[in-house]
């Protein structure tokens, strides 16, 4: 596509994201928008390890949980602002990433995925029995508060902009990596580890690095979730379903592509919410059937996600033959 058209579309996207909450005076849409952004952050973080490096981690929820527990823990025990928990969550997640990464990265494919599942479940069970962390009852944050540093806002708007800012940072980092040598190495690793190794790429080291970066942002997503919802327990913090959702969103939009996760979130979150609102009250579980069908469709027909689909459509209809050359 033409470079200037691309820039225009980018500008449009950024503008749309910025003014979205102001244009509708509707708390429900604001909330929805916040949720979309939050999911986009964790999915984009997952995208780094799963999409770009091709290591399908099903246990990223571990970082989410660590990030989510820290702010509420700080509030719960010392009554101080949850903000202090953010960096601590990041540090804890980094440590976990290193502890998991070093032994498991020499395992390939399925084994790595299974290992991440095992570690995630192990940590979830340990947390549910650890009284300091609230055991299975969980931790609550402030419900109403006077201090802005408690991050309790009645409207969803401040949260929205916090999330937007974080998303911007993740995407910026992803973009920089994508276009650097690091990114080149990751693509090599994704297409064939053995080949990459024989070419001299320090495979294990780079897998670990990208895993750590993924952990940092997933942790931030968790912290943001905790301050928005004001509650965390082992299931909402460490449940495997959260990890799976990250994967689905990233894959739906396009794993390994910069805007894939965001697109996936924009499509899937309102869809999930709408189907639950439309059908959920009936209690037939049809929301899940629809979700499942969608996921199967994507897996079968377009595993590259919607972005891939778009590429194919635009190649057929817009380029009229040979792809245009960008200056």
């Amino acid at each position: 596509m033409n470079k200037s058209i691309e820039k225009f579309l980018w500008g449009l996207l950024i503008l749309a994201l910025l003014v979205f909450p102001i244009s509708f005076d509707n708390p429900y849409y604001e909330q929805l928008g916040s949720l979309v952004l939050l999911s986009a952050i964790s999915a984009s973080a997952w995208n780094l390890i799963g999409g770009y490096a091709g290591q399908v981690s099903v246990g990223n929820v571990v970082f989410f949980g660590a990030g989510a527990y820290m702010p509420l823990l700080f509030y719960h025990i010392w009554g101080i602002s949850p903000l202090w928990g953010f960096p601590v969550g990041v540090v804890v997640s980094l440590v976990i990433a290193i502890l998991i990464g070093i032994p498991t990265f020499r395992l390939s494919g399925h084994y790595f995925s299974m290992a991440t599942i095992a570690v995630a479940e192990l940590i979830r069970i340990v947390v549910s029995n650890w009284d300091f962390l609230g055991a299975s009852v969980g931790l609550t944050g402030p419900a109403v508060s006077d201090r802005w540093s408690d991050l309790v806002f009645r409207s969803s708007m401040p949260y929205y902009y916090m999330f937007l800012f974080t998303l911007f940072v993740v995407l910026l980092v992803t973009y920089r990596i994508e276009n650097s040598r690091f990114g080149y190495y990751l693509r090599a690793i994704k297409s064939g580890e053995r080949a990459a190794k024989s070419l001299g790429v320090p495979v294990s080291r780079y897998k670990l690095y990208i895993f750590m970066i993924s952990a940092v942002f997933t942790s931030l997503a968790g912290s943001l979730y905790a301050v928005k919802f004001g509650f965390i327990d082992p299931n909402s913090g460490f449940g495997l379903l959260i990890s799976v959702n990250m994967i689905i969103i990233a894959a739906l939009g396009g794993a390994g592509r910069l805007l894939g996760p965001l697109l996936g979130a924009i499509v899937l979150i309102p869809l999930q919410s709408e189907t639950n609102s439309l059908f959920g009250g009936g209690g037939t579980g049809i929301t899940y059937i629809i979700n499942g069908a969608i996921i199967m469709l994507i897996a079968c027909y377009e595993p590259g996600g919607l972005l891939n689909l778009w590429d194919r459509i635009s190649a057929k209809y817009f380029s009229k033959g040979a792809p245009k050359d960008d200056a």
Partner: protein
Amino acid sequence: MNFLKNISIIGLFLLTFASVQSSYAADDVKIGLVYPLSGTSASVGKATVDACEIAAKIINEPTPGFEDLPLGAGKGLPGLGGAKLKLIPVDTQGNPGEGQAQTLRLITQEKVSSLLGAYHSAVAITTTAVAERYGVPFVIGDSVAANITERGFKWTFRVTPIASDFAQSYIQFLDELKKNGRTVNNIAIVFENTDYGVSVSGTVRNIAKQFGLNIVADLAYNANSADVSAQVLQLKDKKPDAVIFISYTADAILYAKTMKSLDYMPPVLIGDDAGFSDFAFINSVGNIAQGVVDRSAWVVGPKGSLSYKINELFKAKTGRDMDDTSARGMQAFFVLADAINRAGSTKPEAIQAALKSTNLKPEQLFMGYKGVKFDEKGQNILASTYLTQLIGNQYYTVYPTKGAEKTLVYPYKGWK
């Protein structure tokens, strides 16, 4: 193939942006019902919604036999000129985040006057927080974790007794048994490891210690386990005089079956509501769990009584007897409806004030509470529970002994 694929994806987009507009009569009073309608607790959530629908019908349309119930005349809400109640159930999926999102939708999109929920204590925590932020009354019929009313909230009102009330009942019951000459020195607590089991068992433990009972086995287990033989064997090994189970349905059934297959019967078996009062429990293992003691503020009661008539309506709608959890939900619904009626308006502040001044007498209720009156934390201080026992395929009250339907059968009979 391509066409099919494209159509499916376009269909998805359209579905995303479609929205449904429902139309209600202008003067309907809307109440949001926040319950799990999918997932492992769906049967309880659905039963409660069914119960509330029956309650709404009794209030909205004349139904013979219910004139004694507040608003039972069937003419809608007289305080609002006969306005009818409209229920809007949502599915929390048992998930605190989803529950919060749906509650927000009920408040801001559906513009409900008030809310009722939520079964899961974790969901109750987040949903009441939203209601608190927006200043909408939220009535809790069934969630028992203590911390729900410990946050200084002004818009949360809990009608049901809580964990510490149940623990008090159990231990006092055991103490009375002891005073009547039975051996009750050692007890065991078996509880499932989520907020429900942990909070109830915590209170049981504390009160047991106060009464000088010795806890010989304190077994936390993971809900939905595939096998509980080890736990039952531990009980068999430690031989407690009474076992208190705090479990959801699937585990309750599994324990009953495992106890039979391992031939273990404690002298007294107490099952804390949830799993044990579930219709599925009675239906599948009732015949091998004869004599299990449960807590319930609800009993079907003798023929012709208010509770019996309500049960008949419930049976007609769902095909089975009403259970304690949905009954508590229904009672809370009546409390809320009564408050809205006294408020004479759907303004949140008016309903809040009306709830605060609630003072219902036991004759106006169909549950065994001593009345309904909220303290400054929003907790009903007159909430109380019976202890019931499974005899045949029904639970009958056995404690407090005064006014009980039947005398306690001791020891636990199981399958004998």
